[in-house]
């Protein structure tokens, strides 16, 4: 059991009672904002797995996020209404894409890895935008799917997202503390030695890359449900940068880094956007301060150092 285990439970409790309280006080808007934060928390946590725990600086994570969203939207457009079909298909597609891209990119290191992941993500972006029948640069509207068990309203989507995020974080927690997780982190610490004591480095990195891709795809599906729309922006390199900023802000290789980073960045953006049209300057300044004064991110301010 981690030392600070009550905090996530309290947070979970608060999130469970948030929607009724918000709607009772006329603040329904914030239920949507929290849904969005949770979706990005999921996407950023998936990036943190490879970036933070695996030391793989992927600058193309938007590809899997966006492909998840587009898979959901395109299936809906083609008349598939069951989420029980849409979800697995979208996740498998994102995972497959991560496998193909990872299999090539992981043969490179350093700056080359960053550039080639970015290049692949850009290829996916332009490929998707070129499909005029799926909206091209305008994006694609997508009805919410049918779950069979319940209607996917704003509120049920909120709870669904919360359930998915909780389950994924629990699984990630198990993963980073498992044999696999330990090896992944050891490879980050010293790749040459990890290979020398008998670990097939490439296989471990690729496996982590695919897991991260699947989870980002899942976040993308939720995003498509949330906005009822798949936007090319989800695939753009700025989105990759956005996710990366969240991880850096929250704490690279810190378990709660993705969650804290997504929450902080989206809330700050929300506040600054209301105040000024130069809000991006403010976001930049905050990121700068974090990097200078809290190199292990917001999570690093609380917990022990990352391992």
């Amino acid at each position, binding site marked *: 059991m981690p030392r600070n285990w009550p905090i996530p439970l309290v947070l979970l409790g608060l999130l469970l009672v948030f929607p009724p309280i918000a709607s009772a006080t006329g603040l329904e808007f914030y239920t949507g904002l929290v849904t969005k934060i949770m979706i990005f928390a999921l996407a950023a946590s998936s990036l943190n797995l490879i970036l933070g725990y695996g030391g793989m600086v992927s600058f193309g994570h938007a590809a899997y996020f966006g492909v998840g969203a587009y898979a959901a939207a395109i299936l809906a457009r083609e008349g598939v209404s069951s989420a029980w079909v849409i979800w697995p298909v979208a996740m498998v597609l994102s995972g497959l894409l991560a496998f193909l891209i990872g299999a090539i990119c992981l043969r490179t290191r350093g700056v080359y890895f960053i550039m080639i992941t970015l290049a692949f993500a850009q290829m996916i972006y332009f490929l998707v935008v070129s499909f005029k029948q799926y909206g091209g640069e305008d994006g694609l509207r997508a009805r919410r799917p049918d779950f069979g068990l319940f209607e996917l309203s704003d509120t049920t989507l909120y709870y669904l997202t919360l359930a998915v995020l909780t389950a994924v974080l629990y699984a990630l927690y198990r993963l980073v503390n498992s044999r696999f997780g330990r*090896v992944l982190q050891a490879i980050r610490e010293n790749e040459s030695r990890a290979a020398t004591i008998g670990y097939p480095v490439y296989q471990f990195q690729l496996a982590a890359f695919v897991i991260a891709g699947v989870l980002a795809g899942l976040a993308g599906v939720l995003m498509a449900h949330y906005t009822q729309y798949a936007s090319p922006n989800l695939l753009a390199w700025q989105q990759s940068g956005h996710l990366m900023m969240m991880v850096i802000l929250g704490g690279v290789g810190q378990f709660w880094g993705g969650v804290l980073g997504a929450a902080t960045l989206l809330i700050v953006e929300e506040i600054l956007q209301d105040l000024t049209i130069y809000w991006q300057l403010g976001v930049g300044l905050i990121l700068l301060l974090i990097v200078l004064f809290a190199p292990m991110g917001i999570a690093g301010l609380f917990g022990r150092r990352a391992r």
Partner: protein
Amino acid sequence: MSLLVIEHLTRQFGGLAAVNDCNLTVEPGEVHALIGPNGAGKTTLINLISGVLPPTKGRIYFDGHDITHTPQHQRVRLGLARTFQITNLFKRYTVLENLELAVQARSGSSFRFWSPVKREKGLREEAEQIAELLGLTARNHTEVAQLSHGEQRQLEVGLALACQPKMLLLDEPMAGMGPEESGRMVELIAKLGQSVTILLVEHDMDAVFRLARRISVLVYGQVIASGPPEEIRAHPDVHKAYLGDDPGGKHA
């Protein structure tokens, strides 16, 4: 049957053949030293045998397998483990965490995603045994970065040992050590040599002549002589290339 056989092994870096048509055999159970002047290609040869580098030409056989193109991690599984001349450890991890990683690598699949690795008592116990053998038990929970140079070198050997190899490739284990630390390392290698075959690259001639049952001399990427220490001491080409022309060395 020889444990390690190297045939016509060549590694070219651009125009330079760091290892050039090199032949070498290591018999099971022996401590075999590989000596040679700086730049003779000793570390390149270790990199070729351990699979860090692919050879340009030639073949490597280990324990009856042709491992010329076998990936590095599989060579470790076959029982071939190495150390580095420049200490290469998991610096932010403790001594035990380092050893546990190496133990884990050879005990079952590490593609296990769910159970907490910290609860695996077996890994911890084996790591503790190796730390004891190394004489590092008092430092079990110390981060590697806090260890002395000598202790880091001990652990460097320990990580290779934790792979339970049939053969250890030791690349200058005494590098940068004072006399006292060197002495401890010689003791450790002598102890290991009783149960594991060792190929030892070392500049410290006292250590080499104390430990080795056979010595091979590498010059310009080629083994120019190979034999028991007395023979190598007396070998004229070796003198010229490496030990210097002083004939007094014969009686040292």
